[in-house]
C-alpha cells in the first residue's frame, strides 16, 4: 500500500495500542496486587497462577495491538 506506514496512527488507535501494551506490564510489575497465597487454584497459590494467567493474557493483548496497527495501516498480515 502506498499510504505508507510512516503516517501517524489515528489517535484512537494509538491510545488503544498504548493501553493494550501497558496493561500486562503494570499487572505484573505492581507486585503487591498478587503477592498472596489465596485463593488457590489446583494447589497453585494465587501468586503463581496469576502470573501464569498473564503469560496468556499478555500474548493476547500484544497480538490485539499488532492486529490493530495492521488494520489501521491497511497492511496485509502475510509475509
Amino acid at each position, binding site marked *: *500500500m*502506498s499510504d*505508507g*506506514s*510512516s*503516517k*501517524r*496512527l489515528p489517535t484512537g488507535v*494509538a491510545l488503544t*495500542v*498504548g493501553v*493494550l*501494551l*501497558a496493561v*500486562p*506490564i503494570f499487572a*505484573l*510489575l*505492581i*507486585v*503487591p496486587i498478587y*503477592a*498472596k*497465597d489465596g485463593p*488457590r487454584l*489446583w*494447589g*497453585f*497459590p494465587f*501468586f*503463581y497462577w496469576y*502470573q*501464569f494467567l*498473564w*503469560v*496468556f493474557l*499478555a*500474548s493476547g*493483548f*500484544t*497480538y490485539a*495491538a*499488532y492486529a490493530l*496497527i*495492521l488494520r489501521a495501516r491497511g*497492511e496485509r*498480515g502475510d*509475509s
Partner: protein
Amino acid sequence: MTTSLLADQNIDGVALTVLIFFFAVVTFGGFYAARWRKPDSMHSLDEWGLGGRSFGTITTWFLLGGDLYTAYTFVAVPAAMYATGAVSGFFAVPYTVVVYPLIFVFMPRLWSVAHAKGYVTPADFIRGRYDSRSLSLAVALTGILATMPYIALQLVGIQAVLDTIGLGGSGNVFVKDLPLFVAFAVLAAFTYSSGLRAPALIAFVKDTLIYLVIVVAIIWVSIHLGFGDVFSAAEKKMATPTPPGSPTPTIGTFIPTDASYWAYASLALGSALALFMYPHSMTAVLSGSRRSTIRRNAAILPAYSLLLGLLALLGFAAIAAQTSVFGTDGTANAQLAVPHLFEENFPSWFAGIAYSAIAIGALVPSAIMSIAAANLFTRNVYKEFINKDASHRQEAKVSKVTSLVVKFGALLFVLGLDKQNAINMQLLGGVWILQTFLAIVAGLFTRWFHKWALLAGWAVGMVYGTVTAYNVTVPNVVTTLVDGVATPVAHGTRHFGGSLAAFPFTDTKVYIALTALLLNVIVAVALTLVMRALNTPSGSDSTTPADYYSDAPGVELPAAGTFVGDEEGTVPV
C-alpha cells in the same frame, strides 16, 4: 541413587548413548545448515552473521526461543527456585512476559533502520545515528563484555548434565573436562562453517525436545507429587533457615513480602529492558526478513515464557521429591536439582532426552552469542579502527576467527568460575548491558541526547553498577555430605554475591542494573542540557526519518514528505 552418584566413574550408559545420539544429530544439522537456503556466497556478514536476513516468522520464533531461553532456563532458574525461591527464580516469568510489549514498541524501528542502512550490530546504529566512534565503541565493548559470562553460563549447563551422567568425577582435570572440550570443539567448528544458519536449524531440534520433556515432567509431577504437596514442601523449605546449622543462615522466599516487592519488580523490569540490548538478541531480530516479523513474534514468544514458568516449578518439585543435589565431587550444587530429578525418577532413556535438551539448549545460544560478539568486534573495532577498507570477505573472515576466540574465552571463564552463581554472573552482565539502553532506545526515537552526555551516562552507570555489585558480599558456604548428613562449612565471604543492593539513601533492595540505569539517565539528561547551552557540535545523523519505517522489498518505503516528525507528540509505533 545418591550412592551411585558418589561412586567414582559410575556412568549411566543408556542416558549417555541417548545424549551422544542427539549430539550427533545436531552436529550433522550444524554442518548441513551451510547448505540450507544456500546463498551465492557465504563470504559476507549478512550471510554468515545474519543468515542472509532471510528468516520468516516461524524460523525467527524458533531462533529467538532457542536464543533467549537457554541452558540458563533449564538449569539456573529451577536451581534458584530450589535454593532460595521466588525472588531469585520466579521473577523470570514476569521478566519474560513484560519484555514483549516493550520490544513491540521499539524493535521494529531498529529492524527498519538496520535494514535500510545495512547495519549488522547495535553499535553500527549508534555510529550512524550519533556520528560518534567512541560511543559506538563503548556500546560494542559492553556487548562483548556482557556476552562472555552469558556464553560461560551455557557451558555450565552442559557441565551439570555431564556431571549427572557421571562424567565429572575423575580427579584428572583434563579427563574431567574432556567431554566439555569435545562439545565445545564441535560447536566451534559448525558455527565457523555455517554461521547463523547453524543455530537456526538446530533450534528446531532443541525446542521440540524441550517442549516434550517439560510436558512429560509436569504431567509426572501432577500425578506422582501433586501440586498442592509441591507447594507445601517448597513453602516449608523456604521458611527454614538454610543451610541448617550454618553460621549465617539465609531464608528463601515462597511469596514476596513488603520487603521484597521492589526486588521482585525491579529484577523483572531491569532484566526485561536489558534482554534485547544483548548482541545475540539483536542478531536474531535483524535476521528476520520483514519488519512485521518481530511484532508477530512478540505475540507468540510468550509460549516460551509459559515453558520457563513450568520449568521453574520443577525446582520446587525437586524439593518435594527430596532430590539429592550432591554432585560427583561430593559438594551440594543447586544446579543439579533438575538433572537429578530426572535421573532419580525417570527411566534412563528419558533422562537422556532431558539431558540432551539441556545440552543442545546450551549449544544454540552459545553459537548465536559468539556470532553476535564476533560481529561487534569485526564491525565496530576491526573495521572502525584497524582496517577501514575491509571487504565483505575480510569482514566475514575476521568474524569467523573472532567467534572462535570468544568461545575459547568463555571456556576459560567457566573453568575458573564459581558454578553455584552462574545466574548472578549473568545478572552482572545484565547490569553492564542495560547501560547501553539509553543510547540505543532513545536514539531510535529522538536525537535530543548529546553523544558525549550519553557516553558520560554510560560510564557512570558502568562504574556504579560494577562497584555496587562487587560490594555485595555473602558467606562462601560449601556443603558436603558427612556420614550422610548435609554439612555446610563457611569459608569466609565472597564478592558479587547477588544482584540486589539497597537503593541509594534507602534500605529498599533493588536490582542494581536498574539503579545504575537511573543514574545513567540523570547524568545524560543533565549533561545534554549543558552541551546544548554551550552549543557543542553534535555531529551529523546519517539516518533519515523514513529509515525507521523501511521494510523488505515489495513493501513500499514511505513516500518522501509524508513523514510526521519523530520527536514529541508522535506515537512511536
